[in-house]
């Protein structure tokens, strides 16, 4: 992606400007995390340096202020990811109820390991920390959607569905 392509359309730009007005005068930096979510969704599912520089210019911040925040939070991808990012929770409660069976199965089905992207660029698999779905474990998050009480059959159905839909995972 070249720098010239990184530009919010007028509607998104209006939304971003509106967001910055939610906060007291001079405190518009508070909108940085919400705006980075939008930027990530708009520009390929990850935050490249040009994307972060663009956010800095739109928000009138120094680029370093954007880099240091983007790199701190786990939902911001600092490297390219597949079109459909699958995040399987692996912490205690999910582990107790078979999260590793789910991870194993997805690895075999997609022929990738945790942290990798499928050769066609469709799927990236991540193992993540507690997503607050302990009572409905095991689970995975794909974009904003929680898929809970997973079984191997349910995972298979979902993977098929994502493939058929050419699903793009987005938080917002």
């Amino acid at each position, binding site marked *: 992606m070249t720098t010239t392509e990184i530009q919010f359309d007028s509607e998104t730009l209006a939304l971003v400007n509106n967001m910055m007005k939610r906060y007291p005068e001079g405190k518009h*930096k508070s909108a940085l995390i919400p705006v980075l979510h939008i930027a990530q969704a708009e520009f390929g599912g990850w935050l490249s340096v040009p994307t972060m520089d663009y956010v800095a210019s739109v928000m009138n911040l120094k680029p370093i202020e954007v880099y*240091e925040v983007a790199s701190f939070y786990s939902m911001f991808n600092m490297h390219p990811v597949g079109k459909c990012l699958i995040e399987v929770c*692996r912490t*205690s409660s999910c*582990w107790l109820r078979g999260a590793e069976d789910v991870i194993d199965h997805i690895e075999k089905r997609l022929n990738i390991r945790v942290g990798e992207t499928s050769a066609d660029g469709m799927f990236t698999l991540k193992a993540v920390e507690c997503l607050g779905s302990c009572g409905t474990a095991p689970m995975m998050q794909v974009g904003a959607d929680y898929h809970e009480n997973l079984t191997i059959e349910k995972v298979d159905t979902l993977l098929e569905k994502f493939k058929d839909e050419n699903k793009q995972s987005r938080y917002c």
Partner: protein
Amino acid sequence: MSKKLLLKNDHIEGIHTLPIYRANGGYSVLEKALKTMSPEAILEEVKTSGLRGRGGAGFPTGLKWSFLAKPEGVPRYLVCNADESEPGTLKDRYLMERHPHILIEGMIVSSFALGAKTSYIYIRGEYFYIARILEIAIKEAYEAGFLGKNIQGSGYDLDLYVQVGAGAYICGEETALLESLEGKRGNPRIKPPFPAIAGLYGCPTVVNNVETIAAVVPILEMGGAEYAKIGTEKSTGTKLISASGHINKPGVYEIELGIPVEEFIYSEEYCGGISGGKKLKAVVAGGSSVPILPAELILKTSAGEPRMMSYESLGDGGFLTGTMLGSGGFIVMDEDTSIVKNLYTFARFYHHESCGQCSPCREGTGWMEKILLKILDGRGDMKDIDLLWDIQSKIEGKTICPLGEAAAWPVAAAIRHFRSEFEEYIQYPEKIRDIKHYYRLQETATA
């Protein structure tokens, strides 16, 4: 019969919408509070209720509110902590997803009591779909005149916003949350000054958990004194418990504080017993950071008294034989569970979530994860157990925020109560093959 205050309307379809919430008595507390009560009177009711913070620390809410500085001409803020990230905890998510208006009503009356004109609900980024539910409910509340200018003709103005995070456990710590809300990295601040003096944008701020703020609604509805009659003397009211792990009925339950732990685990009304008819091995009663207890100590105190679901009973015996109610994240483990492997998932979690600001936590969490992995990879040494103990003791109390303790306590408790299991893995490494997916550990160790 269980007492329900927050989830009393859980069975009503559409209760997440304003018309149905109102038809079931919703927003009547707001009208009563804004029209007939002074901020001081609300504070008194909350103090009288004995409500303790439901996020994990259990600090008295009324007292926290009374610390709020009120200098002339300086804005004050109420920030709702909806960053729920403590492993084992999903109660705030449940409440916000199904009952967004009780939180919003609680935010409005609490903001009024504190004199805040702008309030924020900071929600973890992964709960994006719940942020949407809240935004829709807030829009309904604006349209009904419960938010905005001159609410219900009371002359009180309030704007309420939802702010999403982006994945960081540490942002559940109140000063890290405020940093994040200011658009920065979630590094906790050194206290003092406490947020009550210098919080959001340097202004006096109260940060309260979702369940705490929601509980203000039934407190004002029935009066603080009536609320205080529910539960026990030191643990008043009801509490949402997130039940997970090897139980027949995982989920969120509202309990009257003070019911026996045994009843909570085995009765059909709550967890419904251990799945597969197995035996109970251990429980983490209040979210990943509280000490794990073996079956005999979670069911009965060291004095042989039945253990109750309350701040004081779970805490009975200190950390030697007791634990904490914490966030109410109740994780149950059956007889086949590897305590060491479970601890490894916690250690990996805390290493991942350490903000890196304080050396003892940044380095210590990484070392604890590595040593546990070494033991689980069959390369453990008896000295490793003492080394783990030594590291956790050098994190505890030596960091800016309590993530250090949160990472240290589970390690200490697992060694305290299950030392023989560590020793067994070290002495007989072939035992590791009994852990499901043990090969993943070896791969991780090799990598």
